[in-house]
C-alpha cells in the first residue's frame, strides 16, 4: 500500500505539471485571431480538464500522504492506534478528488465528439457557445456532488438531500450537450465512417449511463443499489460506453493526421459493431444482476440465486469486446503496412490542424495561421449561396485564407513566425530521480531516496540554468 500511495503521488505530480503546462499553453499561446470563443470544443474541454486537474490532484495527494505517513511514521489519520480517527475522512478526500476525476475522463471525450459530429454531418456544431458553457458548468458543478458516492455512509438526511439535489442538477448541462449533438445531426448530410459511428455510439451509451446515474442520485434508490453490480453497470456505461467510445472516435478521426495513413474503414466498422454489441452484452445484464442483489467486487457467487444466466451473457460479451480489440490491433497493423495515404484533409474537416501536412512537421505550421472565425478552415473552403447551400471556394480566390497567408508571411519575416519546441534532457533526468525516491521510501532504503532527491534537484537546476549557458 505504501507502493500504491507513492506511485499515485508521483503520478499526480506529473499530471499537475502537465496540467499547468497545458493550461498556460491554451490560455497564452493561441494563434493570432484565435479568441477563446473561436477555439475548437475539444480544446475548450481540455482547458476545463486542466483546471479540474490542478485543483483535484492536490486533494488526493494529501490523502495519499496521510496514508503513507500512517504506514511509515505511525501517524493516526486513518488508523486508530492512538485516539479515535475517522476513516470517513479518507472517503471525503478521495471523492472530492474522485468526482472531478470522472469529469476529467469524460470531458475530453465530449470534446472529441463535438469535433467529429460536425465534420461527418457537414454542419456546424449546433449551439457552440452553449456546448462550451455546459462543459464549464459541468467543471464547476463537479465539485459539489462528491458525497453522492457516500449516501450509504450515514452523513445524515441534510447532507444526503443536498448532494442528491446537486447531482440531479449536474445532469442538466450534460443533457443540454446531448440535445446539442442531436441537433447537430438534424438535417445534416451524414457520412457513417468509423469515427462517426463511435461518436454516435458514445451519445447512445452515455445517455443510458447518464439515466442510470440519475437513478442513484435518488437517495432511497441508491441505498438499494450501493455496492451492487448496478453501480458497476452505470459507471461502465459512462466510462466505457462514454469515454472509451469517445476515445476510439478520436483515434479513428485523428489517426491519419498523426500517422499520415487512414485506418481501414471497413475493419473500423467491424470493430465498432463488435465492440458495441460486446459492450452491451457485458454491462447491460449487470443492471439486472445488481437489482437482484449481486454485490460488486466479487469474482464468485453462490448457485441458485438466479445470477448464473446473466453472468454467462456478461462473460460472452467480455470476450466479444476482447475480439473487437484484436480487430482494432489488426487494423493498426494492416494500416501500417498498406494503409491508404491520407493527405492533408481526408475528412473534409473544419479545424486548422487539417491545413498542415499529415503527419505534421515538428514545427506544426510553416506559417502560423491567422484565425478569422470558428471552424476557420471550413470557411476557407466553403461559402454559402443565397439559399444557404454550400459552395466550394475556387482555389486561388481572394478568401480569408489569402489574407491569412499574407499576414503570416509578414509575421514570419519579422522572425517570430515559428515557435520551435526547446529541447532538453534535463527534465528527463529530473523525472528519473522520482522512481528512485519512490523505491527508497517504499523499501526503507533512505540513502536511495536521498540519491533520487539529489538527481531530481540537479536535473531541475541544470534545466533552469540551461538557457543562460546557451546565450
Amino acid at each position: 500500500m505504501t507502493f500504491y500511495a507513492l506511485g499515485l503521488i508521483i503520478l499526480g505530480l506529473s499530471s499537475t505539471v502537465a496540467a499547468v503546462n497545458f493550461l498556460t499553453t491554451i490560455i497564452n499561446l493561441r494563434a493570432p485571431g484565435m479568441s477563446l470563443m473561436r477555439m475548437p470544443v475539444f480544446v475548450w474541454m481540455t482547458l476545463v480538464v486542466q483546471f479540474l486537474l490542478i485543483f483535484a490532484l492536490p486533494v488526493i495527494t494529501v490523502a495519499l500522504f496521510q496514508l503513507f505517513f500512517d504506514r511509515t511514521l505511525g501517524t493516526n489519520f486513518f488508523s486508530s492506534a492512538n485516539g479515535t480517527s475517522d476513516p470517513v475522512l479518507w472517503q471525503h478526500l478521495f471523492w472530492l478528488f474522485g468526482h472531478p476525476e470522472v469529469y476529467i475522463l469524460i470531458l475530453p471525450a465530449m470534446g472529441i465528439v463535438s469535433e467529429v459530429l460536425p465534420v461527418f454531418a457537414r454542419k456546424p456544431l449546433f449551439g457552440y457557445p452553449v456546448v462550451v458553457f455546459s462543459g464549464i458548468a459541468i467543471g464547476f458543478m463537479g465539485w459539489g456532488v462528491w458525497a453522492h458516492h457516500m449516501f450509504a455512509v450515514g452523513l445524515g438526511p441534510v447532507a444526503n438531500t443536498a448532494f442528491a439535489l446537486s447531482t440531479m442538477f449536474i445532469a442538466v448541462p450534460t443533457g443540454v450537450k446531448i440535445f446539442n449533438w442531436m441537433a447537430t445531426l438534424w438535417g445534416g448530410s451524414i457520412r457513417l465512417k468509423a469515427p462517426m459511428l463511435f461518436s454516435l455510439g458514445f451519445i447512445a451509451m452515455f445517455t443510458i449511463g447518464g439515466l442510470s446515474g440519475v437513478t442513484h442520485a435518488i437517495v432511497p434508490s441508491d441505498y438499494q443499489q450501493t455496492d451492487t453490480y448496478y453501480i458497476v453497470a452505470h459507471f461502465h456505461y459512462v466510462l466505457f460506453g462514454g469515454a472509451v467510445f469517445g476515445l476510439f472516435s478520436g483515434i479513428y478521426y485523428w489517426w491519419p493526421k498523426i500517422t499520415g495513413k487512414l485506418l481501414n474503414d471497413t475493419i473500423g466498422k467491424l470493430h465498432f459493431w463488435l465492440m458495441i454489441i460486446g459492450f452491451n452484452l457485458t454491462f447491460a445484464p449487470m443492471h439486472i444482476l445488481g437489482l437482484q442483489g449481486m454485490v460488486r467486487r466479487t469474482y464468485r457467487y453462490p448457485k441458485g440465486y438466479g445470477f448464473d444466466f446473466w453472468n454467462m451473457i456478461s462473460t460472452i460479451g467480455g470476450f466479444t469486446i476482447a475480439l473487437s480489440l484484436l480487430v482494432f490491433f489488426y487494423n493498426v497493423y494492416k494500416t501500417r503496412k498498406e494503409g491508404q495515404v491520407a493527405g492533408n484533409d481526408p475528412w473534409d474537416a473544419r479545424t486548422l490542424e487539417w491545413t498542415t501536412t499529415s503527419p505534421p512537421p515538428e514545427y506544426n505550421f510553416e506559417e502560423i495561421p491567422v484565425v478569422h472565425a470558428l471552424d476557420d478552415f471550413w470557411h476557407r473552403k466553403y461559402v454559402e449561396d443565397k439559399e444557404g447551400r454550400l459552395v466550394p471556394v475556387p482555389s486561388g480566390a481572394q478568401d480569408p485564407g489569402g489574407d491569412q497567408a499574407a499576414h503570416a508571411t509578414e509575421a514570419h519575416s519579422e522572425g517570430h513566425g515559428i515557435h520551435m519546441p526547446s529541447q532538453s534532457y534535463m527534465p528527463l533526468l529530473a523525472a528519473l530521480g522520482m522512481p528512485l525516491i519512490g523505491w527508497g521510501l517504499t523499501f526503507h532504503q533512505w540513502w536511495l531516496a536521498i540519491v533520487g532527491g539529489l538527481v531530481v534537484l540537479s536535473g531541475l537546476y541544470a534545466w533552469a540554468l540551461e538557457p543562460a549557458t546557451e546565450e
Partner: protein
Amino acid sequence: MATVEHASAKPAAHQTSTGLDNAKIAMWAFLGSECLLFGAMISTYLLYRNHGATGTPLPHEVYDIPFTSVSSFVLLMSSLTMVLALASIQRGDHHGTRVWLIATALLGMTFVSGQVYEFTIFVREGFTVRSSPAGSAFFVLTSFHGAHVTVGILMLLSLVSMSLRGRLPTERATAVEYVGLYWHFVDVVWIVIFTIVYLVPAK
C-alpha cells in the same frame, strides 16, 4: 518551479495571447493548485483538532501563542524584504537585490528555526506526530508549510548565486518576481494557518 525559472529566464521571444509572460500564468496555476493542497490539510486539522488520546495533550494545551506570534511576524516581514528585492532589481540595483534577497532568506530561516524549536518543545510535552490524530494533523500541516518555506529559501539563495555570477540581469527581473509570488503565497498560507490553527479556540 524549475519550469518557471526556465521559461522566465528566456525573454518572451514571441507574442502571447494575453500579453502576460507564460511563466507568470504557470506560477499562478501552480499556486492555485497549492491552495487545495493546504486546504485539504487544514480541513483535516479542523476535523481532528479535538481528537486526542488519553495521556497526551491536545494542540491547544501546548501552543505558545506569544512565541508563534513573533515567528509569524518575522515571516511577514520577509514579504516586505521580498518586495524590496524586486524593487531593487527593477531599478537595476543588483547589490541591493542581493542584500534584500539574503535578508528574505535569513528571515525565512529564522521562521523555520522557530518552527523546529517549537516542535521540540511540543514533542517534549508529549504532543507528537504519533500521539493522537490531532498531533498527526498538526505536524503534517505545519511541516508541509515549513517544507514550502525551505524550498523558497533554496530558490532565494539560487537567485543570489545567479546574481553574483552576473546571470540575473535587469531583463530577468521576472525571475525575482515569480519567486516573490511563491514567497508571498507561502506567507499568506501561514497567516491562514496561524489564524485557524493557533488562534481560533478549539472548543
